[in-house]
């Protein structure tokens, strides 16, 4: 239900006239249905006196958010927004909807949510149905490539805030040199380890200058000890990170050719999967929906090293593990630095009729105050450079430092834009971890992907 703090905040908004009765009822119903309306709703409605509706030209804009864009304050607009479920209903976003609609009283936000994995299906059905959604949440570059995202280079130039963003975060919205959206948040893969387990077998903890072979040497000390040195993952995304760390990539720079079987790629994948079936110090990766298994092993204290993103830290801390963190190994030779970047962006459905309003909403979603709230309340890391100088976001936490460093060199898994290439890579990696020869597996994948990647 609603706690006191929220109740007071809502009451204040209503009394000050910032929230209309209708918006209040809407918000309460979304909170908890009829029950919420019956209880706090009545109390709040009684508390409100006359509210002044802000009139044309836009309403109040909270500090730190973009100023009113007069181009969209005219006619009534309904913006359809589709966000991932674990974002759409969080407090920072709920407040964002309220604040945005307050600033633009002529705009109504219709926010739908779906599980991240289901969003591509919904994007495609919307496109098939001829009713594109205005703002959607996925990897924009993928949909730019398919042709379901609007090219927004013109809106970016008008905005002029390109330099505010972490450079690599923009890669999530760029395809073929054109931009198709606005990055929303970013994360990347780095190394997490259990200090106690490493000390138990006399292995040195990973450091930021370690190479993969050096890490392997330490992990070999786990042989026959009954626990795993490392939890291995055969996910396409994770393995693209290992490849990046060795200076390789799965697509060429122009993004029109698959480069799956580059020697750098093969070397890393070979080492990693041999850690599993050959050296027997890595766990056997499992398929599909158990992608959290390396984390599971780590939390169950059955493995000492985990290559994951910052989303696991809260659970790890709660699990009472003596944890240390560092960046991914510096490739095979120590001279390369890379990781895989995740996160998501907001993009506009192709042929949407409300481009500018949609882009305006996206600007609000990357406003500094909102991004700070996303870090603090949702654990989602910002794409805006200046946010990281805010001391309150916990950037000084020693566990998080290596993650920030790694962010600077992490690049997205771009092969995802070619679903058949993605599958070929996935299958090859899974086969390698199961004992197939890495070179052969990747060569096969290269053949299949080349046919699809054009």
């Amino acid at each position, binding site marked *: 239900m609603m706690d006191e703090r929220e109740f007071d905040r809502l009451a204040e908004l209503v009394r000050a006239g910032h929230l209309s009765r209708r918006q209040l009822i809407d918000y309460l119903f979304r909170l908890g249905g009829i029950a919420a309306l019956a209880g706090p709703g009545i109390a709040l409605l009684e508390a409100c006196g006359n509210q002044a509706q802000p009139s044309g030209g836009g309403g109040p804009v909270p500090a730190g958010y973009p100023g009113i864009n007069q181009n969209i304050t005219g006619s009534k607009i309904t913006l359809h927004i589709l966000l991932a479920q674990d974002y759409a209903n969080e407090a920072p976003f709920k407040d964002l909807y309220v604040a945005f609609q307050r600033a633009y009283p002529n705009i109504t936000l219709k926010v739908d949510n779906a599980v991240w994995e289901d969003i591509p299906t919904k994007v495609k059905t919307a496109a*098939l149905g001829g009713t594109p959604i205005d703002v959607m949440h996925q990897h924009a570059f993928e949909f730019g490539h398919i042709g*379901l995202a609007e090219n927004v280079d013109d809106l970016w130039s008008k905005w002029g805030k390109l330099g505010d963003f972490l450079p690599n975060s923009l890669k999530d919205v760029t395809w073929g040199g054109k931009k198709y959206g606005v990055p929303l948040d970013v994360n990347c893969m780095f190394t997490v380890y259990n200090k106690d387990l490493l000390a138990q077998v006399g292995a040195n903890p990973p450091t930021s200058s370690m190479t993969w072979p050096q890490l392997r040497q330490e992990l070999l000390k786990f042989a026959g000890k009954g626990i795993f040195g490392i939890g291995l993952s055969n996910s396409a995304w994770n393995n693209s990170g290992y490849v990046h760390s060795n200076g390789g990539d799965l697509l060429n720079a122009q993004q029109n050719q698959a480069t799956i079987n580059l020697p750098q790629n093969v070397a890393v994948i070979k080492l990693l999967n041999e850690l599993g079936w050959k050296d027997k110090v890595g766990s056997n990766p499992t398929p599909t929906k158990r992608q959290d298994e390396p984390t599971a*092993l780590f939390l169950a204290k059955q493995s000492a090293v985990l290559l994951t993103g910052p989303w696991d830290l809260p659970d790890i801390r709660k699990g009472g593990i003596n944890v240390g963190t560092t960046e991914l190994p510096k490739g095979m030779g120590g001279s390369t630095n890379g990781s895989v970047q995740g996160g998501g962006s907001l993009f506009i459905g192709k042929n949407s009729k409300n481009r500018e309003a949609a882009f305006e909403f996206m600007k609000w979603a990357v406003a500094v105050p909102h991004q700070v709230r996303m870090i603090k309340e949702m654990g989602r890391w910002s794409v805006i450079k200046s946010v990281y100088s805010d001391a309150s976001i916990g950037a000084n936490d020693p566990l998080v430092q290596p993650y920030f460093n790694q962010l600077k060199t992490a690049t997205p898994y771009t092969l995802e834009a070619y679903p058949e290439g993605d599958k070929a890579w996935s299958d090859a990696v899974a086969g390698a971890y199961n004992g197939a020869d890495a070179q052969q597996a990747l060569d096969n994948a290269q053949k299949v992907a080349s046919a699809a990647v054009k």
Partner: protein
Amino acid sequence: MRSRVVPARLLASRLAWPAVSSARRRRYLAAYAFVGPALVLLVVFAVVPMYYSLWVSLFDYGIAGSNEFTGLANYLHALHDQLFWKSLGVTSIYAVCSAALGLAWALGLAALVTQRLPFMGWFRILYFIPSVGSIVAVATIWLWMLDYNLGLVNYWLSLAHVGKLPFLQDARWALGSVIFIGAWIGASYNLPIYAAGIESVSRELFEAAQLDGARAWQRFRHITLPSIAPITRYTVIMAIIGSFQVLGLIDVLTNGGPDNGTLFTIKYIWEQGWDFLHLGYASAISLFMLLFLFLVTWQQLRAGRA
């Protein structure tokens, strides 16, 4: 109710049905009225979409709006598509094995629970539970139990010194695991049907056989089995048809892998259509699959009649 008769009579006379008495015409119209709503719904929502699918299969259907007429190219491609034929093989193996295992299991259980022993009825009710839950939830639990490193089954196996088995890691084991789980659900689902069938066999037949000195196994083989043969035929056909529709189970357990070892045709269709956006091709192979299924079912019916 009398008012219904009058307009029917008028309608019948206006139709001028040749060589049919007006009373019979009325009956026919009434019959059509009974069948009408159901048939209309089925035609609109099951048959028409198939025609639409046929239409789409003649194109290189682009999601962003560009459709290129390609005629039978999709079908020709399907004929050469090794993965498609492999998927038909995988699905067929699954259909046959899980149906055989599941139905035999259901039959044995039905023989067990239809005995006149106290509390057997309770077992019968509880055995249906696997069919009540959503397939996704059930598949997820099995995914956990069969997990290689942290799963319960491998834990028990390691306690029994058998060692861990790659239930979902290895292509053949994965297919076997899926077959087992499919049979497990199938046994639970078909149990009430077989139980009802066994119970409907006349007791006099049993008593007569017992008087003649027939032993229990002979009674089962010569009375029960033939009596429920129609039911067996029905369950076999439904099991095979059902096997070709299994998608949720595969999505959760194996996602078609490893190495396309559990790539059921319906999963392949979904992949081609939704993931790779080859909607025209997906429509073509789905029609192929339907044809395959029709042939298999027809063959089953004929074999039953013989």
